[in-house]
């Protein structure tokens, strides 16, 4: 029977368990029967049974293997098994799991943060609107499309009433509002003055109450009405449902709150968050300087009924016929082309600029993601080798290669899925940090960048795509049969693997070199921007925006208030100079105006398009802008708004080449203006602009409007700021709390793109370099581990510690050298795209590039020397014995 037990042992365990005893019983009975017939019968029984048992055992094994292979119906169950196995493996190797997930989280987080910002600024439709894709902004443009003009009320009325291709058109403009509920402090808010059909055209529904009734915009309401934003309703009105119908002070008059806009709706211009809307019929009160006839001050948008081309053609016709009867200036009347842009909350040119700038940052983030993917791929490949025994056993037990690949891919995708989750957390934190970056202009400027469903989808898709891209390689290589034998012999398989690993490492190093170069260039640009000669000195200057229009003051009261305010500010200790200005250089975009120089020697009697601003006496002293000829405005000239001007050097050169500008005369519209001084050129819009022709006119304080008070302080600007605010409230306690800011901060916003880019690419560069250094370190440590025996032999044969260090370090430095060479080559090409943002720093700037290369070399050396030293310190005898 002993021989028969051996035959039974050939069967699969499962079969043995079920039938082993029975088989033994049957054979025992057969054997007993054969014995009765004699030895020959026993012999025949054995001869017949043995081969049949072997054959049966073999067929049983084959059947068991086939059963182990996946049946279509159980794919889901298999996936569940894979996931369970994956979870167990990942929990058992927390270090490995954390390393891969962290790498992916950094990469995905970088990409998702940038995408989130782009999504919020450029892609997301206006919240709360119905069918936002049919909404278009409508603009009059010059035939070359370069300049545009806003519309007067009468022009808007023509568009509204005549354009058949539009399903309604609405108009709006900004208005500064000071809103004060009874028995509370007032607040200055950004408001919009809108046509009564504004909400209807947008298709926005009120959250509470109602919007404006669609009525004749030119007829004043019996009682003026106001709609407030959801945000303001919560902040200032305590989210009180009874607030609707209540009256509040708006710019000194009483308005009735008729409705609350839905959450998220802040008007049609995203960067400016509107907090309240008043109808056009309130214009005589809130915008008394404008009118509802010919003054061009309204922005128009409409809802398309026909396709955009037909609407454009119809509106172009309408603008052309309008120009023949319009009393506007010749320049504006030439604006007969219609431009229709999607109403996404941003002007078209700003959208394009943001997209291309984001493209640069997105490229940098993509590099980090690729580095992270390559890094994870190396980790996965290293682990696939250490798991080869497990995989081989599973293959021997009948798991097909496809099954094993699916298992490994499941693991990879779970890792990358976790990485995507981590990446979203990074993106949440990243966008929160970006939101805190102060933006130029009004306090109302703010962006909501937080990720939405689109960003989440994007992050997951990107992570899984990268997971498949970088996970399929290790999975394929790890499941190759007989590779374990190849590895042991150190033959072709090992060489191929290390070549791929090296390729991945060099790729990571090269990509991080590009990132570093980019970050260094932005840092240089930031540096260059900080030392750029602005032409004026913002240090120590405070600025206070005062909108007397929103205080509800009439002309006389506004002028008296501004005069008193400046008088009181002058007496504050430490204040050395002060002046009013209609706008601030580098903080606001100046208006432009057409001037005709009337020269003693008329070389070319042409019109010049120049920037202009109104400034008060003391302006040039306050900002320390040197006058190169003539004088600045006198107090009387400001008081009378005299027909005098100070011109910039560039305007002086262009209008009167080779002649003295002081004493010359300019024509602006119908007025003849005498030049009394020439001021040095200053920056007005951006730091890298060429010197501009600029016309300073006396500021009209008698007309209520928004002006800025600039105050130069000698020391302790914070104390002076509080004194300035107190001075204003002392004149009229009902005024909203004033916001006094440091002018240098406003100016600093001009460097915002460079600052954002330097910080973002700096962080990305540091992250990318860290990942690449870890990759290099890991590869060397692995190589050292694999060569322990060889290094031990070398040491035993008399190699010094230094020789061993050199041997390993050489391997690392070769990789780093290849990385830096390829990286610099790529950087030469890639940084060309940055030219527009570098403020004149060359994309090949040697200081930036060598600084980047320096950092790179230091980190690469560290990642190389540490494993090399460890290799050298290893005990040679121990190493020999262990193998």
């Amino acid at each position, binding site marked *: 029977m002993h021989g028969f037990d051996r035959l039974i042992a050939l069967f699969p365990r499962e079969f043995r368990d079920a039938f082993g005893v*029975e*088989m033994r019983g*049957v054979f025992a009975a057969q054997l007993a029967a054969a014995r009765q017939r004699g030895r020959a019968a026993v012999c025949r029984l054995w001869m017949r049974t043995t081969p049949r048992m072997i054959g049966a055992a073999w067929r049983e094994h084959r059947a068991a293997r086939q059963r182990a292979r996946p049946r279509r119906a159980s794919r889901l169950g298999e996936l569940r098994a894979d996931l369970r196995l994956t979870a167990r493996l990942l929990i058992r190797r927390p270090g490995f799991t954390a390393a891969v997930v962290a790498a992916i989280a950094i990469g995905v987080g970088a990409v998702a943060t940038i995408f989130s910002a782009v999504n919020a600024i450029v892609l997301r439709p206006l919240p709360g609107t119905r069918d936002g894709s049919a909404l278009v902004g409508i603009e009059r443009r010059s035939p070359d499309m370069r300049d545009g003009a806003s519309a007067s009320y009468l022009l808007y009325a023509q568009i509204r009433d005549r354009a058949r291709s539009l399903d309604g058109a609405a108009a709006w403009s900004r208005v500064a509002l000071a809103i004060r509920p009874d028995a509370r402090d007032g607040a200055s808010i950004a408001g919009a003055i809108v046509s009564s059909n504004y909400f209807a055209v947008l298709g926005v529904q009120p959250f509470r109450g109602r919007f404006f009734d669609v009525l004749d915009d030119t007829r004043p309401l019996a009682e003026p009405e106001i709609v407030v934003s959801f945000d303001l309703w919560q902040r200032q009105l305590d989210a009180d449902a009874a607030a609707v119908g209540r009256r509040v002070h708006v710019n000194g008059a009483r308005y009735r709150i008729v409705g609350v806009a839905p959450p998220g709706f802040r008007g049609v211009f995203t960067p400016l968050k509107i907090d309240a809307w008043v109808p056009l019929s309130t214009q005589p009160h809130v915008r008394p300087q404008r009118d509802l006839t010919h003054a061009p001050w309204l922005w128009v948008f409409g809802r398309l009924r026909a396709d955009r081309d037909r609407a454009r053609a119809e509106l172009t016709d309408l603008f052309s016929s309008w120009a023949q009867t319009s009393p506007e200036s010749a320049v504006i009347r030439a604006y007969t082309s219609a431009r229709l842009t999607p109403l996404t909350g941003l002007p078209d040119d700003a959208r394009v600029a943001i997209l291309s700038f984001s493209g640069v940052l997105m490229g940098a983030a993509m590099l980090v993601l690729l580095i992270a993917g390559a890094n994870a791929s190396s980790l996965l490949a290293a682990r696939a080798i250490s798991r080869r025994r497990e995989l081989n056993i599973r293959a021997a037990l009948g798991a097909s290669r496809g099954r094993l690949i699916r298992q490994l891919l499941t693991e990879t995708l779970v890792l990358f899925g976790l990485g995507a989750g981590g990446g979203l957390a990074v993106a949440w934190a990243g966008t929160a940090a970006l939101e805190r970056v102060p933006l130029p202009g009004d306090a109302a400027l703010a962006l909501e960048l937080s990720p939405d469903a689109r960003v989440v989808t994007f992050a997951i898709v990107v992570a899984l795509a990268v997971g498949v891209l970088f996970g399929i390689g290790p999975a394929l290589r790890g499941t190759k049969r007989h590779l374990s034998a190849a590895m042991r012999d150190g033959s072709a398989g090992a060489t191929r693997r290390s070549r791929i690993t090296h390729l991945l490492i060099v790729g990571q190093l090269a990509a991080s070199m590009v990132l570093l170069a980019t970050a260094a260039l932005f840092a240089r640009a930031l540096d260059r921007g900080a030392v750029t000669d602005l032409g004026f000195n913002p240090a120590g200057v405070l600025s206070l925006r005062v909108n007397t229009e929103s205080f509800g003051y009439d002309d006389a009261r506004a002028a008296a208030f501004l005069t008193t305010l400046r008088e009181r500010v002058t007496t504050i200790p430490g204040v050395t100079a002060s002046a009013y200005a209609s706008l601030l250089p580098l903080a606001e975009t100046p208006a432009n105006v057409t001037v005709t120089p009337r020269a003693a020697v008329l070389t070319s009697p042409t019109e010049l398009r120049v920037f202009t601003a109104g400034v008060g006496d003391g302006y040039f002293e306050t900002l320390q802008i040197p006058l190169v000829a003539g004088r600045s405005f006198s107090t009387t000239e400001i008081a009378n708004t005299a027909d005098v001007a100070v011109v910039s050097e560039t305007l002086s050169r262009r209008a009167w080449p080779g002649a003295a500008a002081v004493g010359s005369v300019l024509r602006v519209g119908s007025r003849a203006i005498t030049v009394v001084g020439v001021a040095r050129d200053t920056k007005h819009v951006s730091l890298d602009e060429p010197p501009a022709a600029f016309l300073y006119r006396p500021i009209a304080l008698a007309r209520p409007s928004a002006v800025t008070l600039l105050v130069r302080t000698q020391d302790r600007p914070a104390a002076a700021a509080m004194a300035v605010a107190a001075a204003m409230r002392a004149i009229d306690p009902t005024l909203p709390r004033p916001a006094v800011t440091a002018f240098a901060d406003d100016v600093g916003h001009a460097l915002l793109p460079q600052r954002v880019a330097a910080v973002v690419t700096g962080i990305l560069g540091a992250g990318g370099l860290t990942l690449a250094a870890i990759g290099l370190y890991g590869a060397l440590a692995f190589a050292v581990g694999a060569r322990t025996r060889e290094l031990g032999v070398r040491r035993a044969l008399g190699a010094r510690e230094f020789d061993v260090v050199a041997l390993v370090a050489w391997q690392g430095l070769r990789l780093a050298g290849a990385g830096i060479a390829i990286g610099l080559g790529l950087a030469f090409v890639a940084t060309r795209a940055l030219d527009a943002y570098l403020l004149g720093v060359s994309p090949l700037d040697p200081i930036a590039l060598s600084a980047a290369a320096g950092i790179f070399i230091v980190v690469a050396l560290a990642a190389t020397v540490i494993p090399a030293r460890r290799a050298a310190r290893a005990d040679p005898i121990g190493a020999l014995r262990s193998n």
Partner: protein
Amino acid sequence: MAHHIPDYLPLKPIDFELLLALSSEDRHGYGLVQAVSAHSGGLIELDPGNLYRVIKRLLADGLVAEAGHRDAAGDDGERRRYYRLTTLGGRVLAAEIARLRDVLRDPLTRDAARRWS
């Protein structure tokens, strides 16, 4: 569960023999070997391995079932596992017998038998 009898047909000769052996009474493994051998006139001598491979298949298909353990009739005093024909097994066996009868009655079969005997 409704079983479609023709799906099981034709039976393999060895399956047919086993089902036939179980049709009269429940049997244990060695009893099956003996019955099959007797019925086939000693032509089919089953080895334990293939016997239980077939039994395993017939069990999985639901044609036979275990009938519990009984004391061995032999001298070793072991308990043996007995097998019985299931209702499905009986119906499949009957269908196979009917099929074989049709085959034998077929003119082609008769003609071949006459010509070659």
